């Protein structure tokens, strides 16, 4: 899985030096090429409708000559190259969800075609191309988009670019409803049919978690249906009502996340997602002072790594010939419920001497010192939220293969939580 940072909100694409360096310094090795920064949804909406002096000159130049796209992003591309940042995915310009412009589909297609060529030139292997929707009747959406995507497929083939469709919501008088490709079965059909008609696997899917959240969708089921068609995830948080791109885990109420990360992670684990994880936190980044942005980017990288770690948690268990656990509480119980059968631990241990010698969830509870006797290829998994304290203790004991386990996003949960008194029984 590749961690990709969307530069929107962090990088001024006309003066990208500082922002790109900040991204690289934070640990990211890849960015997405957000071509919609050259022609923002708002600037497209007002194209030709404003006085010359208030019109976005960059979008106007693109309207005259879509080939200007390359010139407009040249500084960004140069900085990415200088900072050894890869660009595995790009996103084509798009119209606002509440657009009234029904006259721009041809221009959008031209712009998208140039976006594909640009991707080909710079070795960017995927381009997210949202479906056309403006001015298209509900019953004709597939027909129109089928023809649109197939027209693009030829160019994409020449340029070795995969076109990624993306789930959409629609703005119904200010309220977001499920839009094109928000029904996973329909989206899967579209991708399959386009690939069949293109005669090769030229199309895939980018799952936008923000749209799923706005539409209150079950992301476990959504990802499960799309399966291997999901080549990229646009990972962003929002409150479920406004379309924002916030840093994951920052939109919370009363100590709880408003995005259903549990079902997203369950879904991505189920499909063994191994594509591009595009972290989009444009609104959070733009709202932070440029003085704080380097630290925000470091946090963003840590968040992306954490999500990847959660999705791939089972790989960690596969890494060792044998494993032992530390902790004889709820986390250990959850481990045993979900993974105990496939990855049976040798035993667990706990600092509570009252538990030593007892059996917990089928495991013998031993004192921590017992870990010293483990073979070299055995991993010790900390099943307790006091990770860092326990890690220190284990290091002092000379234990090497220390790993963290986490039960926040388990495949299933018990209906109750045990209390320490229960454990003692």
């Amino acid at each position, binding site marked *: 899985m590749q961690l990709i940072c969307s530069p929107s909100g962090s990088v001024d694409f006309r003066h990208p030096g500082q922002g790109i360096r900040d991204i690289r310094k934070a640990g990211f090795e890849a960015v997405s090429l957000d071509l919609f920064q050259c022609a923002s949804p708002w600037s497209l909406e007002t194209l030709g409708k404003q006085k010359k002096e208030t019109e976005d000159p960059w979008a106007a130049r693109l309207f005259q000559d879509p080939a200007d796209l390359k010139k407009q992003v040249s500084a960004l591309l140069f900085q990415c190259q200088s900072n050894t940042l890869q660009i595995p995915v790009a996103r084509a310009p798009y119209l606002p969800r509440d657009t009234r412009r029904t006259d721009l589909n041809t221009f959008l297609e031209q712009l998208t075609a140039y976006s594909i060529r640009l991707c080909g030139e710079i070795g960017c292997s995927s381009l997210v191309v949202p479906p056309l929707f403006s001015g298209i009747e509900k019953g004709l959406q597939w027909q129109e988009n089928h023809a649109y995507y197939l027209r693009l497929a030829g160019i994409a083939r020449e340029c070795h670019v995969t076109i990624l469709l993306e789930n959409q919501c629609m703005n119904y008088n200010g309220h*977001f409803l499920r839009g094109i490709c928000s029904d996973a079965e329909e989206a899967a059909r579209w991708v399959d049919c386009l690939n069949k008609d293109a005669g090769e696997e030229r199309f895939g899917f980018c799952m936008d978690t923000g749209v799923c959240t706005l*539409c*209150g969708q*079950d992301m476990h089921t959504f990802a499960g249906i799309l399966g291997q068609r999901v080549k990229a995830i646009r990972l962003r948080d929002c409150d*479920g009502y406004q379309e924002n791109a916030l840093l994951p885990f920052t939109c919370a109420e*009363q100590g709880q996340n408003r995005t259903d990360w*549990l079902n997203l992670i369950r879904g991505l684990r189920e499909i063994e997602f191994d594509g591009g994880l595009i972290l989009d936190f444009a609104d959070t980044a733009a709202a932070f002072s440029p003085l704080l942005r380097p630290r925000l980017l470091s946090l963003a990288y840590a968040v992306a790594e954490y999500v990847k770690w959660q999705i791939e948690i089972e790989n960690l268990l596969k890494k060792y010939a044998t494993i032992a656990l530390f902790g004889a509480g709820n986390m250990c119980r959850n481990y045993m419920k979900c993974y105990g059968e496939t990855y049976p631990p040798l035993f667990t241990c706990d600092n509570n001497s009252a538990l030593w010698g007892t059996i917990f969830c089928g495991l013998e509870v031993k004192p921590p010192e017992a870990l010293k006797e483990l073979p070299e290829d055995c991993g010790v998994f900390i099943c307790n939220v006091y990770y860092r304290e326990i890690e220190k203790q284990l290091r002092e004991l000379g234990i090497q293969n220390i790993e963290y386990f986490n039960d926040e996003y388990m495949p*299933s949960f018990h209906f109750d939580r045990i209390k320490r008194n229960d454990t003692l029984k």
Partner: protein
Amino acid sequence: MNLIGTQTKNIVEDGNPEAGFRLMKQAGFSCADFSLNSYLLNTSLYQFQLNDFFNRSVVELEQFFTPHKKGAVSAGIRINQMHMPYPAYVPKGSKELNGYLWNEVAPKSMEICAFLECPYIVVHGFKLARNLGSEQAEWERTEQFLDMLAPMAKEMGITVCIENLYDNVGGHLIEGPCCDAKKAVERIDRFNDRYHAEVVGFCFDTGHANLVGLDFETFLVTLGDRLKVLHIHDNDGVRDLHQIPFTFTKTRENKASTDWEGFIRGLKAIRYNRVLSFETAPVLTAFPKEMQLQVLQLISGIGKYFTAEL
């Protein structure tokens, strides 16, 4: 021609049920959605609290509801649908609590439904996906519950209607049981084929659908004739407010932010000729008591508008 109905909650009182039914009739309704759930509140159940209402025998319950039955008949109101107390399963509840809901409340609700000659009873599917790990595993539990009810339903000539629900993640309402119309169709058909009767149907809840951005038209068209009853109400897309349709706007154009046009198109497409029932009881506590009749008239007027559009 669609008949128009509304909930009995906040209108029909046990002391003089006939007066409430007469008020409904006067306001322009001809059908009632009998709020049996008012006798065992969800808010209590989620706090693991039961009352003794359903400790009564079936005979005692029938005696209790005899004035309601007579009152409705006398006022010219047909009890078309009923809401079973919910949840039917409390996730962290004791075995005793859940056993009581399963073995006492649910079957007795069916008996009351039959006694009131009500053809449809709405039930909530179990909200267990987060614990069990998938929507499918959650449905299997609901299916067991429906399997328990189905023989009674067949014998009594009642259709048990599952309803699209929401779940709550950090205060954000997301899709819950029965929000996938295609799955609902397949599951309903499987049930009815197995029992050789229409033992299971669907109740489309406009408010819940709006909260999770469902496309009304597509959902209704997918359901087709499996749609037996409605819960019509409106909200701001954020909270489950059960307000009057066309109440909410979100832009300066001040157009309704709920897709009522899609609702009408969907019902029209499937030639829905059953009751247009409003689930707007909270409106009646929001408005002054003195305005109750006018408020109910407005709601039934919206029903008439829908009827005319259909």
